[in-house]
Protein backbone atom coordinates (compact mmCIF):
# COMPACT_ATOMS: atom_id res chain seq x y z
CA UNK A 1 0.00 0.00 0.00
CA UNK A 2 1.32 3.44 -0.90
CA UNK A 3 2.14 5.08 2.44
CA UNK A 4 0.93 8.62 1.70
CA UNK A 5 -2.31 7.38 0.19
CA UNK A 6 -2.80 5.05 3.14
CA UNK A 7 -2.28 7.91 5.61
CA UNK A 8 -4.88 10.09 3.89
CA UNK A 9 -7.35 7.21 3.96
CA UNK A 10 -6.44 6.40 7.57
CA UNK A 11 -7.16 9.99 8.66
CA UNK A 12 -10.42 10.13 6.69
CA UNK A 13 -11.59 6.93 8.34
CA UNK A 14 -10.44 7.26 11.95
CA UNK A 15 -11.32 10.94 12.31
CA UNK A 16 -14.17 11.25 9.80
CA UNK A 17 -15.81 7.81 10.08
CA UNK A 18 -16.51 5.15 12.68
CA UNK A 19 -19.11 4.94 15.41
CA UNK A 20 -19.68 8.33 17.02
CA UNK A 21 -20.59 8.52 20.68
CA UNK A 22 -23.33 10.79 21.93
CA UNK A 23 -25.50 11.16 24.95
CA UNK A 24 -24.90 11.80 28.63
CA UNK A 25 -23.12 8.61 29.56
CA UNK A 26 -20.29 9.15 27.12
CA UNK A 27 -17.54 11.71 26.81
CA UNK A 28 -15.39 12.37 23.78
CA UNK A 29 -11.76 12.92 24.69
CA UNK A 30 -11.29 15.84 22.32
CA UNK A 31 -12.99 17.81 19.65
CA UNK A 32 -11.87 15.34 17.00
CA UNK A 33 -13.84 17.15 14.29
CA UNK A 34 -11.55 20.14 14.65
CA UNK A 35 -8.43 17.96 14.63
CA UNK A 36 -9.74 16.32 11.47
CA UNK A 37 -10.39 19.60 9.69
CA UNK A 38 -6.89 20.78 10.63
CA UNK A 39 -5.16 17.63 9.40
CA UNK A 40 -7.14 17.61 6.15
CA UNK A 41 -6.10 21.21 5.50
CA UNK A 42 -2.42 20.31 6.00
CA UNK A 43 -2.69 17.28 3.72
CA UNK A 44 -4.49 19.25 1.02
CA UNK A 45 -1.77 21.90 0.98
CA UNK A 46 0.96 19.23 0.80
CA UNK A 47 -0.82 17.58 -2.14
CA UNK A 48 -1.21 20.93 -3.86
CA UNK A 49 2.48 21.74 -3.38
CA UNK A 50 3.51 18.36 -4.82
CA UNK A 51 1.24 18.79 -7.79
CA UNK A 52 2.60 22.25 -8.51
CA UNK A 53 6.13 20.83 -8.55
CA UNK A 54 5.15 18.02 -10.89
CA UNK A 55 2.98 20.16 -13.14
CA UNK A 56 -0.70 19.61 -13.89
CA UNK A 57 -1.98 16.07 -13.77
CA UNK A 58 -2.81 15.08 -17.38
CA UNK A 59 -5.61 12.68 -16.41
CA UNK A 60 -7.80 15.29 -14.76
CA UNK A 61 -7.87 17.89 -17.52
CA UNK A 62 -9.86 17.40 -20.71
Amino acid at each position, binding site marked *: MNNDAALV*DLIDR*LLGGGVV*IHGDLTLA*VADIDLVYVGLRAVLASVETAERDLLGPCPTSTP
Partner: protein
Amino acid sequence: MPYVYAVTEAACAETAPHVVRWCDLAAIIGAEPLPSDPDERTLWHHEAVVEAAMKRGPVLPMRYGSVVDDVTGFLATRQEEFTAALRRVRDAVELSVRLPREEVAVAGTGTEYLMRRATATALAEQVYAPLAELSRASTRRTQAFAFLVETTALAAFHERVASLRDRLDVELTCTGPWPPYSFVES
Protein backbone atom coordinates in the same frame (compact mmCIF):
# COMPACT_ATOMS: atom_id res chain seq x y z
CA MET B 1 -11.97 6.19 31.77
CA PRO B 2 -12.02 3.43 29.12
CA TYR B 3 -11.08 4.19 25.54
CA VAL B 4 -13.22 2.22 23.09
CA TYR B 5 -11.65 0.88 19.89
CA ALA B 6 -14.50 -1.16 18.45
CA VAL B 7 -17.75 -2.96 19.06
CA THR B 8 -17.90 -6.62 18.10
CA GLU B 9 -19.83 -9.79 18.87
CA ALA B 10 -19.23 -11.31 22.30
CA ALA B 11 -18.58 -14.72 20.73
CA CYS B 12 -15.72 -13.24 18.66
CA ALA B 13 -14.06 -11.42 21.57
CA GLU B 14 -13.14 -14.36 23.80
CA THR B 15 -9.41 -14.03 23.17
CA ALA B 16 -9.23 -10.24 23.00
CA PRO B 17 -7.14 -8.59 25.73
CA HIS B 18 -9.52 -5.96 27.15
CA VAL B 19 -13.20 -6.50 26.65
CA VAL B 20 -16.49 -5.39 28.18
CA ARG B 21 -19.39 -7.71 27.31
CA TRP B 22 -23.10 -7.08 27.33
CA CYS B 23 -25.46 -9.79 26.00
CA ASP B 24 -24.23 -10.72 22.51
CA LEU B 25 -22.08 -7.59 22.18
CA ALA B 26 -18.56 -6.79 23.27
CA ALA B 27 -16.51 -3.58 23.32
CA ILE B 28 -12.77 -3.76 22.71
CA ILE B 29 -11.34 -1.25 25.14
CA GLY B 30 -8.08 0.19 26.41
CA ALA B 31 -7.55 1.38 29.97
CA GLU B 32 -5.83 4.60 28.89
CA PRO B 33 -7.26 7.08 26.37
CA LEU B 34 -5.14 7.70 23.29
CA PRO B 35 -3.84 11.30 22.98
CA SER B 36 -6.39 13.89 21.92
CA ASP B 37 -3.92 15.31 19.38
CA PRO B 38 -3.37 12.21 17.23
CA ASP B 39 -0.24 11.69 15.16
CA GLU B 40 0.63 9.00 12.64
CA ARG B 41 1.80 6.58 15.33
CA THR B 42 -1.28 6.86 17.55
CA LEU B 43 -3.65 6.64 14.58
CA TRP B 44 -1.96 3.44 13.36
CA HIS B 45 -2.11 2.05 16.90
CA HIS B 46 -5.90 2.54 16.99
CA GLU B 47 -6.11 0.95 13.55
CA ALA B 48 -3.96 -2.05 14.59
CA VAL B 49 -6.22 -2.86 17.55
CA VAL B 50 -9.33 -2.68 15.36
CA GLU B 51 -7.70 -4.81 12.64
CA ALA B 52 -6.77 -7.47 15.21
CA ALA B 53 -10.43 -7.60 16.29
CA MET B 54 -11.52 -7.74 12.64
CA LYS B 55 -9.55 -10.97 12.20
CA ARG B 56 -11.79 -12.61 14.82
CA GLY B 57 -15.18 -11.49 13.52
CA PRO B 58 -17.32 -8.53 12.39
CA VAL B 59 -16.36 -5.18 13.95
CA LEU B 60 -17.80 -1.69 14.17
CA PRO B 61 -14.76 0.57 14.49
CA MET B 62 -15.14 3.58 16.78
CA ARG B 63 -14.04 7.03 15.71
CA TYR B 64 -10.57 7.87 17.08
CA GLY B 65 -10.73 9.46 20.51
CA SER B 66 -13.88 7.77 21.81
CA VAL B 67 -13.86 7.60 25.58
CA VAL B 68 -16.85 6.11 27.34
CA ASP B 69 -17.61 6.39 31.00
CA ASP B 70 -20.07 3.50 31.24
CA VAL B 71 -19.20 0.94 28.57
CA THR B 72 -21.96 -1.50 29.50
CA GLY B 73 -24.53 1.30 29.33
CA PHE B 74 -23.12 2.36 25.97
CA LEU B 75 -23.62 -1.17 24.56
CA ALA B 76 -27.03 -1.55 26.19
CA THR B 77 -28.55 1.71 24.92
CA ARG B 78 -27.43 1.08 21.35
CA GLN B 79 -27.82 -2.70 21.27
CA GLU B 80 -30.33 -2.78 18.43
CA GLU B 81 -28.31 -0.41 16.26
CA PHE B 82 -25.03 -2.28 16.84
CA THR B 83 -26.55 -5.72 16.28
CA ALA B 84 -28.05 -4.62 12.95
CA ALA B 85 -24.80 -2.91 11.90
CA LEU B 86 -22.71 -5.99 12.74
CA ARG B 87 -25.01 -8.05 10.55
CA ARG B 88 -24.53 -5.58 7.68
CA VAL B 89 -20.72 -5.71 7.78
CA ARG B 90 -20.26 -9.43 8.46
CA ASP B 91 -17.79 -11.13 6.08
CA ALA B 92 -17.02 -7.86 4.33
CA VAL B 93 -14.24 -5.24 4.38
CA GLU B 94 -13.97 -1.62 3.29
CA LEU B 95 -11.90 -0.54 0.29
CA SER B 96 -11.07 3.04 -0.61
CA VAL B 97 -10.77 4.22 -4.21
CA ARG B 98 -9.62 7.75 -5.02
CA LEU B 99 -9.44 9.66 -8.25
CA PRO B 100 -6.65 12.16 -8.84
CA ARG B 101 -7.33 15.49 -7.15
CA GLU B 102 -9.35 17.82 -9.27
CA GLU B 103 -7.44 20.72 -10.75
CA VAL B 104 -8.43 24.05 -9.27
CA ALA B 105 -9.19 26.55 -11.98
CA VAL B 106 -6.57 29.24 -11.40
CA ALA B 107 -6.48 30.27 -15.04
CA GLY B 108 -8.94 30.12 -17.88
CA THR B 109 -12.50 31.22 -18.30
CA GLY B 110 -15.54 30.20 -16.33
CA THR B 111 -16.67 28.07 -19.25
CA GLU B 112 -13.39 26.16 -19.25
CA TYR B 113 -13.72 25.59 -15.54
CA LEU B 114 -17.26 24.25 -15.93
CA MET B 115 -16.16 21.96 -18.75
CA ARG B 116 -13.37 20.57 -16.61
CA ARG B 117 -15.84 20.01 -13.80
CA ALA B 118 -18.23 18.17 -16.11
CA THR B 119 -15.44 15.93 -17.40
CA ALA B 120 -14.31 15.12 -13.86
CA THR B 121 -17.87 14.30 -12.80
CA ALA B 122 -18.38 11.99 -15.78
CA LEU B 123 -15.09 10.23 -15.08
CA ALA B 124 -16.03 9.76 -11.41
CA GLU B 125 -19.29 8.11 -12.45
CA GLN B 126 -17.47 5.78 -14.88
CA VAL B 127 -15.30 4.61 -12.00
CA TYR B 128 -17.92 4.51 -9.26
CA ALA B 129 -20.77 2.63 -10.93
CA PRO B 130 -18.90 -0.56 -12.01
CA LEU B 131 -17.24 -0.84 -8.58
CA ALA B 132 -20.48 -0.24 -6.67
CA GLU B 133 -21.96 -3.09 -8.69
CA LEU B 134 -19.46 -5.49 -7.08
CA SER B 135 -20.04 -4.16 -3.56
CA ARG B 136 -22.57 -4.78 -0.81
CA ALA B 137 -22.71 -1.03 -0.08
CA SER B 138 -20.90 2.11 -1.18
CA THR B 139 -20.52 5.79 -0.37
CA ARG B 140 -19.05 8.62 -2.39
CA ARG B 141 -17.56 12.02 -2.06
CA THR B 142 -16.45 13.89 -5.17
CA GLN B 143 -13.07 12.22 -5.65
CA ALA B 144 -13.09 9.54 -2.92
CA PHE B 145 -15.25 6.46 -2.78
CA ALA B 146 -15.67 3.77 -0.13
CA PHE B 147 -16.94 0.28 -0.91
CA LEU B 148 -18.08 -2.47 1.42
CA VAL B 149 -16.84 -5.58 -0.37
CA GLU B 150 -17.51 -9.18 0.57
CA THR B 151 -14.26 -11.01 1.27
CA THR B 152 -15.13 -13.54 -1.42
CA ALA B 153 -15.43 -10.71 -3.98
CA LEU B 154 -12.10 -9.02 -3.15
CA ALA B 155 -10.13 -10.51 -6.03
CA ALA B 156 -12.81 -9.56 -8.55
CA PHE B 157 -12.92 -6.02 -7.12
CA HIS B 158 -9.16 -5.53 -7.46
CA GLU B 159 -9.28 -6.89 -11.01
CA ARG B 160 -11.97 -4.39 -11.91
CA VAL B 161 -9.98 -1.50 -10.41
CA ALA B 162 -7.02 -2.54 -12.56
CA SER B 163 -9.12 -2.79 -15.71
CA LEU B 164 -10.75 0.63 -15.10
CA ARG B 165 -7.30 2.14 -14.56
CA ASP B 166 -6.21 0.82 -17.97
CA ARG B 167 -9.39 1.44 -19.88
CA LEU B 168 -10.02 5.00 -18.63
CA ASP B 169 -6.32 5.84 -18.35
CA VAL B 170 -6.86 7.29 -14.89
CA GLU B 171 -4.62 7.09 -11.88
CA LEU B 172 -6.83 5.34 -9.31
CA THR B 173 -5.54 4.88 -5.77
CA CYS B 174 -6.99 1.87 -4.01
CA THR B 175 -6.24 1.16 -0.33
CA GLY B 176 -7.50 -1.42 2.12
CA PRO B 177 -8.87 -3.71 3.28
CA TRP B 178 -10.02 -1.39 6.09
CA PRO B 179 -12.44 -2.05 8.93
CA PRO B 180 -15.84 -0.69 7.83
CA TYR B 181 -15.40 2.87 9.15
CA SER B 182 -17.66 4.28 6.44
CA PHE B 183 -20.46 1.75 6.95
CA VAL B 184 -21.23 1.79 10.66
CA GLU B 185 -24.29 4.02 10.29
CA SER B 186 -27.42 2.69 8.64
